[in-house]
Structures are given as structure tokens and as C-alpha cells.
């Protein structure tokens, strides 16, 4: 009997299948990594195991007990623990009290703290390396220690199955090694460990087996090496034979002072460093792609360029510093961001949303611009009177790009335009970008974790990883030199 068995699990949201016929199992003392790009359905599978989502079909068994459809607390009590990616500890309680909470029985009558609970919590804290900070409040701890608290809480009840969501996100390489050791220890303790992550590389030395998903379906399964070399996986993560239309940097006239220069930029969120000495440049008329996984720092970089967050270092537009310039002035000056998650006015119609982008245009300009946009995105013209909230994900993305283009930007920043979109919709957006590139002089800075989508358009590519730029070059060299990082 396996500790965790998932059989023909499916989950539909309305007509959309987020996961289809997913089957795998994990034994005690084994680490299985469930990987897939954004929107692949791996989170849906994880939530279905936890009971946060009710599976539409299929079965989830924990030590042979069918738990599909059970509420989360009953599944947890049966022996399923979860290490959450984002920690939200109780801030008025100490580290020890936070861990003790996880050991407290679910009873309304437990009114006095049990000394045995605190002894046990202290022992667990020692195992995960928190014994020096037991009496501190979480707010005073570094990020890695907050993750340790999550780990301690997850193993507190001695679960047979542990789910770990993106174990290494936001950690430095030294902390990553320490965490890998802690997860390996769970395996030694005989627990079944299911790691959910974006790519194989980060967990390849840790996982015994890998199960890869893409748009809700299984695409590969096997040892980390086998999955990394799998044809389908390589195609999903890196694209097939690449046709790039990249132009060499010498083709751009502003070689001395590029349109946008980012130099040694650092950004901190509380204790976590989100960008570290990031430098890049974009020439006038160039299409530059910044690729990186979730949490690598793409959105942070764009928000720094747009003046939305404070940073150290220099950001210059045509040689003039943008530091201290307000976000509104930067946008009004023509550096316009189409944000991740779209940020549309969902209660307004498509036409009204586009008008929001046209506030600074004359009536003549506006009509001309609209005609051009409808040519680029014919779908938007059909949907003109519909409210943005009722559009499909792909149509919303088109509207976001169109609204940004409405302002006649000098530099268009596109943050993850493919987020959560089906492949066929990505294809439509890709075509629109291609036409944009061929028919206009537009300068684009694209942030993507979907390499397949980003490379064909890009003149140059930067790879952002753990807050740092780790590779720069033309798309033609990407697969050979940086591709490994991506699977």
C-alpha cells in the first residue's frame, strides 16, 4: 500500500479542465517531484490532495483511505502535512508558540497550554535549526527562518505524506542546500514527500522520480535525468526548432546611449533581496526578453523601471536618470507597463478600458489608434460593448496590451502575457506581437517564464535567476547555453 495514491484525478472549472486523468503514487521514504510551467495544473493537483479543492473525478488515497472530497482538516489528521510557500505565522506569538500551535489538538476544550506540547515543539525546532530563536517573534527573523517554521509546523504531527510547495523559492544557494538536507531527512524518516515546483533542475539532486505536467495533462514521468531529456518536456520548456528573427545589437543606432539602461539595481522586500546588481539595456526599436521562473524578480524589475518601488542603483532613459521620478511621470513619458495579472477595470466595457489608455490623445489620434488596434486584435472590436470581466483570459490579455498600446508608448513593458493562457490563445497573442514588431518601430521589454513564447520574438535575451542576471545573449544560443536551467 502506497502512502499517497492519486488515480485518474481530474478537476474542471466550468468548461476548463485544470487537470485531466492524473495518476501517480508516492511511497514512504520516496521523493516525487510534480513539475510543470505556470498553468500546468500542478497546483490544482496539490490542492485536490489537500482537500482545498474538491476533485471533479478520480481518487486520492492516503494509506489506502479514499479522501477525495474530504474537508482539509480531516485529510490533515489522516497524515498529510503541507509546507506552504508563503508563510503567515502568528506575529504576536513566539517561534516556539507557533510550532506548538501545530501540535495542539483540534479541541474546543484545550484551555491550558500543555507542557508536553512545548517540549515536543522545542525538539522539532531543534531538528529544523530554530533552537537559537525559539523566543523570538517571527517578524524579527530572516526569510529562511520563516520557511523553517513552516517546515517545523508541517512535520509537527508526524505526517505520512508531506507536500512541499516550491521549497527553494526566495532562498540563497546556501539556504537552498540546508533546505534540501531537511527535505532529504523527511525521506529518511520514511515519509512520502511530494515536491511541487516549476522545473526539474532545482530539485534534480533531491527527487527520486519526476512527474511532469503541461496544460492539465501528464507529459512525462521517470528519473530526473530521463525527464530532463524527454522530447516532449524539452519542447514544452524550450520550444522546438527555433526560428528567430533576432537582429544583432549593432543594427541599432543608439549603441552609445541605449534607450533604457538599468545599472546595478538592488531591490529589497523586508529581508528578502528581490534584485541583486541587475544591469540590462534596451535599444530604441529593440525587442528584449527577460526570461526567468516565478519569483526570479521579473515583476520587481519592471516595477522598479516604472518607478513603483524604491531601488538602489541607476535606471536611465535616453541617458537621463529616472530615479526619483514619479510613476505617473514615467508612464506619461511613454514607458508603459502591461502588468502581470492584467489589472483591467473589470466592471468597465472594452471600449471604456481602451479609453482609459487614450486620455492624453487628441480625438483624431484616438480614432486612428483604435482602428490600428482593431486591425491588430480584431477580437476586441467584436467585444467592444462587453465588460472586461466577462472576457476570456486571452481576450483580457489582448485588451491589456491594447490599452497599453493606446497610449502610444515609447517603451512597452509586457509582464507575463501568457500567464494562465491555453497554448492556442498564446499562439494568437504571439502572432499579434509578431505583427507589432514587423509593422512598427516599437521598443518592447518582455518578461516571460515561457521560453517558447519569448524567444521567437526577441532580439536579445536575459536570464534572470534568483534575483540576478545569469545569462545574456541572442535567442539562437539560448538552448545550448542556458536551456538546462529551464527544464
Amino acid at each position: 500500500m502506497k502512502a499517497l495514491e492519486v488515480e485518474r484525478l481530474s478537476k474542471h472549472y466550468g468548461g476548463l479542465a485544470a487537470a485531466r486523468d492524473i495518476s501517480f503514487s508516492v511511497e514512504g521514504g520516496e521523493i516525487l517531484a510534480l513539475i510543470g510551467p505556470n498553468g500546468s495544473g500542478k497546483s490544482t493537483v496539490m490542492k485536490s490532495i489537500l482537500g482545498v479543492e474538491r476533485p471533479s473525478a478520480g481518487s486520492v488515497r492516503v494509506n489506502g483511505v479514499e479522501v477525495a472530497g474530504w474537508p482539509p482538516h480531516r485529510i490533515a489528521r489522516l497524515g498529510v502535512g503541507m509546507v506552504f510557500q508563503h508563510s503567515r505565522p502568528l506575529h504576536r506569538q513566539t517561534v516556539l508558540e507557533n510550532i506548538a500551535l501545530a501540535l495542539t489538538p483540534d479541541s474546543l476544550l484545550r484551555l491550558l497550554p500543555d507542557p508536553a506540547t512545548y517540549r515536543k515543539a522545542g525538539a522539532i525546532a531543534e531538528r529544523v535549526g530554530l533552537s537559537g530563536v525559539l523566543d523570538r517573534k517571527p517578524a524579527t527573523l530572516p526569510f529562511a527562518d520563516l520557511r523553517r517554521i513552516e517546515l517545523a509546523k508541517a512535520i509537527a504531527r508526524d505526517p505520512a505524506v508531506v507536500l512541499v510547495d516550491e521549497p527553494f523559492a526566495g532562498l540563497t544557494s546556501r539556504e537552498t542546500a540546508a533546505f534540501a538536507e531537511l527535505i532529504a531527512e523527511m525521506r529518511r524518516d520514511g515519509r512520502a514527500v511530494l515536491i511541487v515546483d516549476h522545473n526539474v533542475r532545482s530539485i534534480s539532486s533531491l527527487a527520486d522520480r519526476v512527474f511532469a505536467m503541461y496544460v492539465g495533462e501528464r507529459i512525462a514521468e521517470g528519473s530526473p535525468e530521463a525527464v530532463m531529456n524527454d522530447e516532449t518536456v524539452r519542447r514544452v520548456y524550450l520550444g522546438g526548432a527555433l526560428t528567430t528573427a533576432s537582429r544583432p545589437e549593432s543594427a541599432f543606432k543608439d549603441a552609445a546611449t541605449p534607450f533604457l539602461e538599468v545599472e546595478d539595481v538592488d531591490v529589497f522586500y523586508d529581508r528578502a533581496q528581490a534584485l541583486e546588481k541587475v544591469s540590462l539595456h534596451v535599444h530604441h526599436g529593440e525587442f528584449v526578453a527577460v526570461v526567468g521562473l516565478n519569483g526570479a524578480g521579473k515583476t520587481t524589475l519592471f516595477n522598479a523601471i516604472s518607478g513603483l518601488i524604491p531601488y538602489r542603483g541607476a535606471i536611465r532613459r535616453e541617458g537621463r536618470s529616472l530615479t526619483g521620478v514619479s510613476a505617473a511621470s514615467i508612464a506619461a513619458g511613454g514607458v508603459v507597463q502591461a502588468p502581470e495579472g492584467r489589472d483591467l477595470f473589470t466592471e468597465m466595457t472594452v471600449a471604456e478600458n481602451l479609453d482609459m489608455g487614450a486620455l492624453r490623445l487628441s480625438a483624431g489620434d484616438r480614432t486612428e489608434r483604435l482602428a490600428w488596434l482593431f486591425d491588430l486584435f480584431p477580437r476586441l472590436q467584436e467585444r467592444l460593448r462587453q465588460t472586461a470581466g466577462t472576457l476570456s483570459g486571452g481576450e483580457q490579455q489582448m485588451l491589456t496590451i491594447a490599452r497599453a498600446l493606446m497610449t502610444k508608448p515609447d517603451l512597452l513593458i509586457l509582464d507575463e502575457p501568457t500567464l494562465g493562457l491555453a497554448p492556442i490563445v498564446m499562439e494568437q497573442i504571439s502572432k499579434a506581437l509578431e505583427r507589432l514588431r514587423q509593422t512598427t518601430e516599437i521598443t518592447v521589454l518582455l518578461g516571460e517564464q515561457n521560453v517558447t513564447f519569448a524567444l521567437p520574438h526577441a532580439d536579445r535575451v536575459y536570464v534572470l535567476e534568483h534575483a540576478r542576471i545569469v545569462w545574456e545573449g541572442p535567442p539562437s544560443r539560448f538552448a545550448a547555453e542556458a536551456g538546462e536551467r529551464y527544464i
Partner: protein
Amino acid sequence: MCGRAAYWGGAEMGRAFAPAIIALAVAFCLAFLPLWVSGYVLGLLTIAYYFGVFSMAWDLLFGFANEVNFGPTFLIGLGAYTAGILDSQYQPPIAICIAAGALAAVVGGVLLALPALRLRGPYFGLTTLVAVLILQNFVVVFADLTGGEIGLTVPDVISINANVNYWIALGFMSFSGLVLYGLSRSPVGLILQASGQDPVQAGALGFNIVKHKLASFVVSAFFSGLAGALMVFYLGVASVGTFIDISVGVQVIVGAVLGGRRTILGGAIGAIFLIGAGELLRPLGDLATFIVSAIALVVVLAFPGGLIGLASRSRGAA
């Protein structure tokens, strides 16, 4: 490890319960007030103490279960009117009327919370707001039973002695504060806080969130209803304007937030402050309400930790 357990038992326990011990000492001193102050001031404080219980009971829901209950007066009103109507109709012993009031608030609270807790986001709060309006309409429509807009005069009072009434209110507030504070600091209180802060994670730790939130609603309803019923037998009259009106609920909420969210005891301080300040400024006429509201607004905006947060911060700085 044994040392740690002993440590928790001693110093840690002392730290956790220091505020409660200080509060009890203050309450003990307040018990001697009748020796000095006038009956009028005593009457005012008696009311303030009942409001203190309303605010503390409300903070259990807002501060710990993370549910904004816009209808504290639904629970208070149920307790007050049930006790009042029972007394005016059948005249059983007062203790039975009061117990029935508390029970009615609990039952009403469960009936309201069971469906409302399934809703997410602001809808829970809106449901509780609607409940207040329904209760208010009920009182007005069934005027024969409830006294309608004129108010319901109850034939009995607990005591006509101002000192006795004052001591009852003070004792009741101290008792309620002790129970609610102890509960908030107990393992159950921690589970409740975790459920309010991150329901998904609390569920993954094996906690039945609905059970804990419902239990907190029951406790909050019990103390609100009990306080409402006791207050009826102090005032001798129940009216919509004193027990149910939305503005009464707003005062309860402002008192709790002003005193300090997630502190329980802050509710009592905030409520007493509101009533006390309103009275001190009464010579200013209508301006008094404006000034008190402005002070409350400033405290809430500038010091989200409320009066207690302010006090502990200045102590920490010293």
C-alpha cells in the same frame, strides 16, 4: 527541554497574563469609586462597563476569528429584549430572564453564523448588518409584545441602589474580561487566530475552521446577550435606540478598535473612554460627538494598535 517547560510555566506565563493582572488590579481600585463620586457618574460608568463587555465580545470575533460582525446589536438586542419581554409577560425570577436572554443571543447567533460563515469576504459582515435591520423591524412591527418604538418597560430591576448596580456591572465586566482574555490566550485562542489569519493553512494543520469560528461566535453572543439582559434590568426599560440601533453597534465597534484590536481588554478601555469623553465634553453640545469621533478617528488612523498598542509602545520605548 525540561528547563524550557518550566520556563514557559513561569516567566512566559507571567508575561502572557500580566495585562490581565494589571486589569484586575485596576478593577479592584474602581470598586472603591462609590466612596467618592456622585450617583450620576456611577450610573454613567455602569453603562460604560456594559459597553465594555460588548466591545470585548466583539473583539473576539474581529481580532481573533477575523470576522467583521457589523451586527453586535443583533446579539445584544436579542439578549435584552428576550429578558425584558419574558419579565414583562410572565415575571419569572430575574435570574431566569437573564439566562434566557443569554441563551436567545447564543441561539440567534448560531442561526446567523452557520449560514453566514460559509460566505467569503465582506458578505459575512453584510449578513450581520441585515440581521440588525430585521430585528429592529421585528421590534417595531410587534409593538404589542416589544413596546415598539416607545420602548419596553420591565416591571423589575435588580436593584435600585446605584452602588449595587455599579458593582454588579464592574464585577460582570471583570469576569467577562477575564474569561475572554484567558480564552484568547489559550491554545483554543491560538487556533482561532490561526483560522482567522490563514484558513487554508489552519485547515492543513488539521483544524476545523468552521467549528472554531462558530464556537467564537457562540462565546461572543453569550457575553453580548448576557450583558444586554443585565443592562435591561439596570435601566428598567428596553428601547431600539439603546440596544439595537446601528449607531449603538458602531459605538461598540469603535470602542473595540479604539482600545486595540486583538487585545480583548482594549475593548473595555475603548468603550469606557468613548462614554467618558462624551460626557466630559457634554457642555460643548453637539460638538462633543464630533470631537470624540475625531479623536477616535485619529487614534485608529495614527495608531492601528489602538490605545493599548500606544501604551505598550511607549513602554517599550522607555
